[in-house]
């Protein structure tokens, strides 16, 4: 228990230091001939939220020599359509297309939605970017400036922002602490986790593993894209700039469902890591540490538990500030709630293998493959 606590705490401190170091770096090739790397930006859309217009507008504002925007909608009646059309009219200088329709090749609706734009993209370099992402003008330039020999994909750390509602606040805490540090730490340890909200890669490289259509049967197409790149011997690089995800309003129920879905995906795709999750959380490792220090050194278990949480909170605040996210007075409260929710979420995720996503109930099978659940099953 003592060794386990020491290892987890060591990784916490090391991961925090790595996060600070990574996010304070500058991209390596800011003087690159960017015109030689034209990029097609694929934006799969479904429905609209209050921030959609501003989020999409930020992509029209990008400062980059050659790029095109390809929006895709599965349904012509989708509420995002008028917003996209209006933005395209308002920004005629930017090459942009709206593609309606999908190719139904698998259970992953995002991949189905993306396929048409993936095939019709003019350039080899593709950036897949979700609708709830807002970026700075130099975002693309700074991402491309990180391209290096052997890098097959560049992804970004996601910073949750503009949250309202308990669920969104909890999501914000999760993204800006545990997830951000975990992403940078695992990348450093050789097993990077790709985030589908921002993935820059070459179509010609993706075609070597069958293209994104090969990922259509997986719910976590981003994780599998990263795995495929790794199996091809390509490196995954994480952008030094976090991207902002506008969280908006979300209830505790939606937070719970989303984390159950993510948990079940992790269980299917990385079962060993999922198995050890309880002991790598603040509460789990704190419990082990308290028991060990109480037994071996006679420490008060309660005092140790509190001190342990204080250390984690400090490290998490450092990560939040490294990301450049806001810290409100309520942060410690939501942080504590999320930490204590981690174990029940893990237990709930362990207890099943079905998820609901975009109105569909799916069964996650071994390895992350999915299939629709039978009705009334």
């Amino acid at each position, binding site marked *: 228990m003592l060794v386990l606590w020491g290892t987890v705490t060591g990784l916490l401190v090391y991961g925090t230091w790595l996060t600070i170091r990574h996010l304070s770096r500058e991209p390596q090739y800011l003087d690159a001939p960017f015109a030689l790397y034209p990029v097609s930006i694929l934006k799969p859309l479904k429905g609209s939220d209050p921030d959609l217009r501003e989020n999409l507008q930020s992509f029209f504002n990008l400062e980059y020599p050659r790029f095109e925007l390809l929006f895709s909608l599965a349904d012509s009646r989708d509420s995002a359509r008028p917003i996209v059309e209006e933005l395209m009219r308002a920004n005629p200088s930017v090459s942009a297309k709206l593609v309606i329709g999908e190719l139904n090749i698998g259970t992953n609706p995002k991949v189905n939605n993306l396929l048409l734009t993936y095939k019709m993209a003019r350039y080899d370099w593709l950036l897949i970017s979700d609708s709830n992402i807002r970026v700075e003008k130099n975002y693309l330039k700074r991402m491309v400036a990180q391209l290096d020999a052997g890098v097959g994909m560049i992804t970004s750390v996601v910073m949750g922002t503009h949250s309202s509602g308990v669920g969104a606040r909890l999501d914000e805490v999760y993204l800006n602490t545990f997830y951000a540090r975990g992403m940078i730490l695992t990348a450093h340890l050789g097993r990077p986790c790709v985030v589908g909200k921002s993935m820059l890669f070459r179509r010609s490289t993706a*075609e*070597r*593993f*069958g293209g994104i259509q*090969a990922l259509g*049967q*997986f719910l976590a197409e981003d994780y*599998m894209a990263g*795995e*495929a790149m*790794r*199996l*091809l*011997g390509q490196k995954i690089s994480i952008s030094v700039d976090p991207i902002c995800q506008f969280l908006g309003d979300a209830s505790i129920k939606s937070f719970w469902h989303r984390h159950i879905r993510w948990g079940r995906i992790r269980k299917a795709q990385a*079962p*060993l890591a999922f*198995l050890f999750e309880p002991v790598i959380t603040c509460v789990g490792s704190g419990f082990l540490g308290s028991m060990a220090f109480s037994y071996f050194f006679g420490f008060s278990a309660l005092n140790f538990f509190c001190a342990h949480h204080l250390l984690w909170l400090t490290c998490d605040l450092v990560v939040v500030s490294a990301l450049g996210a806001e810290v409100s007075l309520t942060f410690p409260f939501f942080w504590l709630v999320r930490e204590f929710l981690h174990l029940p979420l893990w237990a709930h995720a362990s207890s099943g293998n079905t998820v609901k996503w975009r109105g569909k109930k799916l069964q996650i*099978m*071994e*390895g*992350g*493959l999915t299939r629709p659940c039978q009705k009334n099953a």
Partner: protein
Amino acid sequence: MFLADLHIHSTFSDGKLTIPEIVDLYGSCGFGAIAITDHLREAGTLFGRAARYLEKTLTLSTFPLYQAILSSEAERAWKQYRMVLIPGVEFCKDSFFHHRAAHILAIGLTHFLPAKLSVVDLARNIRGLGALAVAAHPVSIRRLSHQTHYLWDQREELAAEFDAWEVASGPYLFTEVANTRLPKLANSNFHCLKHINSWKTAFECEKHPESILEAIRKQELKFKFYYREKGHDLMDWVDASTLGHGDRSSGIRDLVNY
């Protein structure tokens, strides 16, 4: 005549090199053909579960990616090195007991088959799909490691189910197999760079997957010990037809004593 290694593992199971790295390694060494044969273990067993947790086996979910990468790399291997890349799988029926464990190579297999099938069913399915069923390292592999003796123990009953039996694996030549009339194949069981120094099979047929498989069926092949650092052959060719007939040839003794 070209050299082939038809038992190679990549990072899809427990190999250390990715498929593109393997292609570049063998291509730059002048090989004419390779088969990548990653492990596919029984999903429901303890060994299978452990391998899956440690990501040391192909699974139903990774198999399509595996095939897609093999297909694109086969194209590159031919264009860049004029080397044939044959897709394959090593089915692993593992057990705590050496005499119950068996590994079966499926060379040329592009379809997923569950490893839980019986040995006979696996071999028949593999051959039914046009691939070769090869008994992998059927005798002691001469090192402190898990052994797979089941196929060898049952060789009389199973002989007709297999297209070939590995007569060498890595640096070891199996005299037990060499001294029989069973059809043979020599491979490296490549997992990491140092394994390239090992037994290989040489062919005189056309550089084409079907021709290579046919040459194995007809046993039109020779065996050779490949040593990379020297850059030249250390051993004489061994004609497969000279193995397992009458007296033990001095050539074999030389090879074994090497």
